[in-house]
């Protein structure tokens, strides 16, 4: 398994680049996703209070 994952002497560089990119791409997706959910929840809470 380790041999399969090995990138020779550049293993650390390759995986750091990939992991960083994946984390940033996930952030790019989930930030607006949860921001919208939060906005909707705030609006609904407000509406429920007014009722």
């Amino acid at each position, binding site marked *: 398994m380790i041999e399969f994952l090995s*990138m020779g002497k550049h293993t650390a560089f390759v995986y750091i*680049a990939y992991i960083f990119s994946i984390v940033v791409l996930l952030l*790019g997706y989930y930030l607006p996703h949860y921001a*919208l959910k939060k906005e909707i929840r705030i609006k609904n809470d407000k509406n429920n209070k007014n009722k």
Partner: protein
Amino acid sequence: MNISKIANLKFFYTNTRKISYYMSFFVMILFIIGIYWGLFIAPEDYLQGDSYRIMYMHVPAAWLSLQTYMVMAITGFIALVWKIKIMEIISIQCAPIGALFTIIALVTGMVWGKPTWGTYWVWDARLTSELILLFLYIGVMVLYASINDKRQAVKITSLLAIIGLINIPIIHYSVEWWNTLHQGPTVTKFDKPSAHTTMLYPLLYMFIVFNIYFITVIIKRVRLGIYAREKNSKWMEEYTDD
């Protein structure tokens, strides 16, 4: 389908929820395939060894950083001239996505630079102009956030985006106009690309996947932008699917 209908905020918001949901799964699967292809199937480079595999994240992110800026400037121009609301929202929502692509391109470039050039950073034309692109994206976001009247804010950020367009050909041609440590074009030499097809195909595949990711995220961000603007409108009050 009528374009004016898609440009309608209500139509866009109510019809893209499911599309965005399914595209998220689709793009995730495509990314897994692309990452596996780039890391384990593409052959090792005879000169750079395995470090060149960073290219499959670095290059599409760099291309998308330029492409996203062009979308931001073009939609900003349309918003400025024809005052189409959805174009205003698309234009401003491009900035955070473009900034993310630029950050990926810069950081993966630095991580690739260390084993290849022996340094993380040099102030050469390509790297510096790409850094200026990041500052342009940040400038657009900060400017938009600092103005209370959002329709007025979009006019000003659109102008900044249009002026900043001058940086795009500078980034693209920097490796030809100046002596840079960054390598010259590899893929865009369409008559004779210097990468072998076994390395080139996963790169083109990842470019397509990054584009699908961009569409998925821009739909999400535009829905967020529409909600922020229209949350007090009658149709939004009546819409209960979210």
